[in-house]
């Protein structure tokens, strides 16, 4: 390989760095993310709340929280297929009494049921992507 001039090398480094910087910016590295001062004022659980979850039900507060089997049983869900955090909500895929596959969405902060969707009557249509 021929010798690299310092100019070329620095140009390459600059260009690569710029792309990297762009990705970092997209990832929110420089976005004025609200600091999380509420961390100290965490309710009951050790898990810190999201930015402004000075919210009512303490059982559901905190990032990463997933409902316990007991909490699910209160909603009539005994055998969930999938439980997932999804943009501030908790998405629970489960069977209902009729054997249909249902997705129940809970508000992650309060635990309130936000919406419920019947995903399928038969197993085939269950495969389809769940965002609309």
């Amino acid at each position, binding site marked *: *390989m*021929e010798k*690299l001039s310092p100019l*070329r*090398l620095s*140009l*390459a*480094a600059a*260009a*690569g760095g710029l*792309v*990297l910087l*762009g*990705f970092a*910016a*997209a*990832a*929110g590295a*420089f*976005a*004025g*993310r*609200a600091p999380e001062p509420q961390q100290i004022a965490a309710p009951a659980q050790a898990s810190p709340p*999201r*930015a*402004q*979850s000075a919210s009512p039900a303490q059982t559901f507060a905190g990032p990463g929280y997933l409902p316990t089997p007991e909490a699910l049983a209160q909603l009539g869900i005994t055998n969930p297929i999938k439980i997932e955090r*999804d*943009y*501030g*909500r908790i998405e629970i895929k489960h069977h209902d009494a009729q054997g249909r596959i249902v997705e129940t969405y809970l508000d*992650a*902060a309060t635990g309130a049921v936000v919406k419920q969707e019947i995903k399928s009557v038969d197993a085939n249509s269950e495969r389809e*992507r769940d*965002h609309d």
Partner: protein
Amino acid sequence: MTDTDAPSKPALVTVWDPLIRIGHWVLLAAVAIALITRGEPELLHQGAGYVIAAYVVWRVVWGIAGPQRARFETFVRSPIDALRYLADLVGGKAKRHVGHSPAGGWMVIALLVTLSGTVATGLAMENRVPVPAFMAPLVAQAVGERAEFGEAAEAGEREESPWEEVHEAFANLVLALALLHVAGVAVASFAHRENLTRSMIDGRKHMEE
């Protein structure tokens, strides 16, 4: 690696350096994984995304400070050249290029740009703080947000990141370009009677004017 072919004509030269080749196939694998997983499982999808991000950064550096054939300056021609090449290809009289053809060069650029877009939007949608601060108003406007952008996202009031649509559009664009790329390679291989895919594996092509 194997030297079984009988080059009755011009000598074989190494055109694609090892990193270009490895990078190419790693990128293919990563893009395939990212497209197949379509977001879930997250680990796989995002892992592939980071590999693509690393590839793009590396390719930009390599395109400036890499070996001759990898450099953008050696293969990025005017778009008119690219169109002329494509027309010639259709007409069956396209000139063979040992490096990238003018059309191939633009494919490299197009793929790098769309891959960057996919990576950036993917990162942005994962990071509920959706965008760099300076861009936030722009996006908020586009989405017609009611509340302040960052706040709403943090509170999880929105069901989906506004970037999701853009991310998917970019991903589809990448897929379309990749298919076009494969088609282009097939056509060019046929037109110039050479196996371009193999060249991307062993790196060699026949030298010719």
